[in-house]
């Protein structure tokens, strides 16, 4: 449960390790790196080859006879699968991911603030309870949630809360947003609690002496001071939701499907149409890759904090 080991990384250790990074070690690493990269490279190169060539000759022959086209990308973006084009499914992914990142973080931040800075009986127990909910696998939630959304709340045969809307457009995105929000809360609360709890007591007390209430402290102090952790978690959550297939499969229908679901469908139905799959895969992974490369520092930090959780 301690903080990242990186922070302890020291400079004076370095020369002693040097003997370990021998040319042989570097060679070994390069070989592994090549093995790790080649499959992706193969799909990437293929996505730029004419459709008929992809399925008749290996992508490695491209380098001998390079012939490049963007047709696969234009065809794929306009390809209709389960009533929407791949381009529309990318918009769906965005529509699912942004609210499903903002909402849980805000709710978790509020809960984390109370757990960290408002003293009440049972505080520790409640924190541990919330944190322990992380161990519940998503699979445990699917069927009951599906029933809750489609049947509402019923007690003893009386309808208490009605079901979710199901109009001609399907249920909209509400079900996916809510499901992602709920399943993200334990980890988000845990991480943000750790960030908020590490704010020095002096600062909080000074603010209180100045007459600030919890509401003001939350807005003016806790929120900005937790920003680095919020950023780390936001990236983690963004990638998680964008890359999710399970929740999308169960809680989106037809026109609301995100790109992961459309790709999975394409792979099943058009499994041999590699001009679709190669280009489709790349348009789907370009967004997370951009996020990843642009914000790598935050992402690694979030990963380290998340992984050393107890």
């Amino acid at each position: 449960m301690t903080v990242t080991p990186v922070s302890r990384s020291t400079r004076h250790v370095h020369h002693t390790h040097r003997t370990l990074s021998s040319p042989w070690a570097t060679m070994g690493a390069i070989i592994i790196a090549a093995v790790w990269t080649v499959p992706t490279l193969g799909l990437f190169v293929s996505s730029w080859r004419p459709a008929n060539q992809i399925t008749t000759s290996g992508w490695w022959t491209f380098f001998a006879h390079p012939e490049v086209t963007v047709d696969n990308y234009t065809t794929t973006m306009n390809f209709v699968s389960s009533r929407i084009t791949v381009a529309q499914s990318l918009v769906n992914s965005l529509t699912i991911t942004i609210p499903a990142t903002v909402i849980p973080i805000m709710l978790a931040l509020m809960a984390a603030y109370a757990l960290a800075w408002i003293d009440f009986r049972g505080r520790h127990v409640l924190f541990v309870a919330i944190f322990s909910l992380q161990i519940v696998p998503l699979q445990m939630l699917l069927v009951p949630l599906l029933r809750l959304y489609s049947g509402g709340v019923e007690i003893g045969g009386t309808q208490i809360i009605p079901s979710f809307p199901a109009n001609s457009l399907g249920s909209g995105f509400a079900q996916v947003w809510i499901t992602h929000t709920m399943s993200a809360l334990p980890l988000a609360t845990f991480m943000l609690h750790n960030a908020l709890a590490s704010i020095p007591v002096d600062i909080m007390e000074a603010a209180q002496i100045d007459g600030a209430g919890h509401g003001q402290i939350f807005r003016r102090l806790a929120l900005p001071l937790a920003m680095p952790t919020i950023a780390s978690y936001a990236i983690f959550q963004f990638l998680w939701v964008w890359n999710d297939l399970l929740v999308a499969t169960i809680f989106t229908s037809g026109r609301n499907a995100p790109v992961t679901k459309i790709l999975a469908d394409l792979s099943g139905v058009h499994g041999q149409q590699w001009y679709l799959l190669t280009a489709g895969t790349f348009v789907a992974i370009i967004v997370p890759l951009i996020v990843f490369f642009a914000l790598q520092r935050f992402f690694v930090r979030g990963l380290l904090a998340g992984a050393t959780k107890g």
Partner: protein
Amino acid sequence: MQAFFSWLAGLPQLVQIPVVVAAFLVVVGLIIFLIEVAPRPGRTYTWVRLGIAVGVPVVTLAVLGLERGAMWVYLLGVILGGGLFWLDARSAKGRGRLIQLALFISPALFLLAIGLVWPTLRTVVFAFMDKTGTQFVGLKNFVWVFSSGSSGGLTSLLNTIVWVIVAPILATAVGLVYALWVDRSRAEKLLKVLIFMPMAISFVGASIIFKFFYDYRQGNQIGLLNQLVMMVGGTPVNWLQNYPVNMFLMIGILIWSQTGFAMVILSAAIKSVPADLIEAAQIDGASAVRRFLHVIIPTIRPTIIVVWVTISITSLKVYDIVSVTTGGYNNTSVLGYEMVRQFSQFPPQTGHSAALAMLIFILVIPFIAYNARSLAKGDR
């Protein structure tokens, strides 16, 4: 709220994002405003506090769309709110404190209760019910899980066990060795990124990348794996058709995606091994391999366990890879996938699926317990 979501679903997707985020932030802003108002002194604010304590649950119920036949639930909300007001008014630590606390924490608690706790309990109940979820059937669903054959669940259970044994060990081992090899090499950053990049790629994307890599066809091969087989003089194989090769190749996809995670975490741990420890071993004449085995590994053992446990849990829940590569055919189903398949078929086998979900849950627990124990030991 139902009306709001209905209206929202009719808007263009990209308009929905700002609308829903703005609506949410307005609600949060309102809650923060109430939190600021709650502790103020004076008689007026006593009434305000009463208004908040009783009003918030009632408004919440109204927003959720309480049915006409269930008006008594409002009464429940009023009683709860009144109770909170009373407790708050008597609180020794100042009025408004409990109301503030409730406003901060209840949105998350409410969602956790209906979204995690309640569904978990319901799944446990479903696991002992028939496929409609109404008739108690005892252990029948679990008997089904452990029965072999194409209609039973045993294949997916055994496969999951193989996944959990193979994937975490290999991903952790490769990640560890790689972290050590690139440590302080000249191209450390670049080499790390290459291995780490798959972390950003979805399992769906990874599965398609590897489906292409494993591709088999008559005539010219377009999958690199079969091309390599041919280069060493073998005949191409239909990889994803033959059990258990197909399963191990699918596990390979998980390893490919998780090694980067292991590498980054372990690399950070290796860098934090105290210099004097390694120097002492060096002076004693220990070789690089010995230093690795006897100094570095024992020092970073807790981190290794964390990584191994995390990947084990990921392996237990795997769904996407199976769904995209084989769809569970050719004996490749796993618990996480079979669980979804059981209730997506007609008629839905809710009982089977709940039993499988429960099994995943039960299998996760020892890993987490082990992890917690090893962390507790490390802290001491």
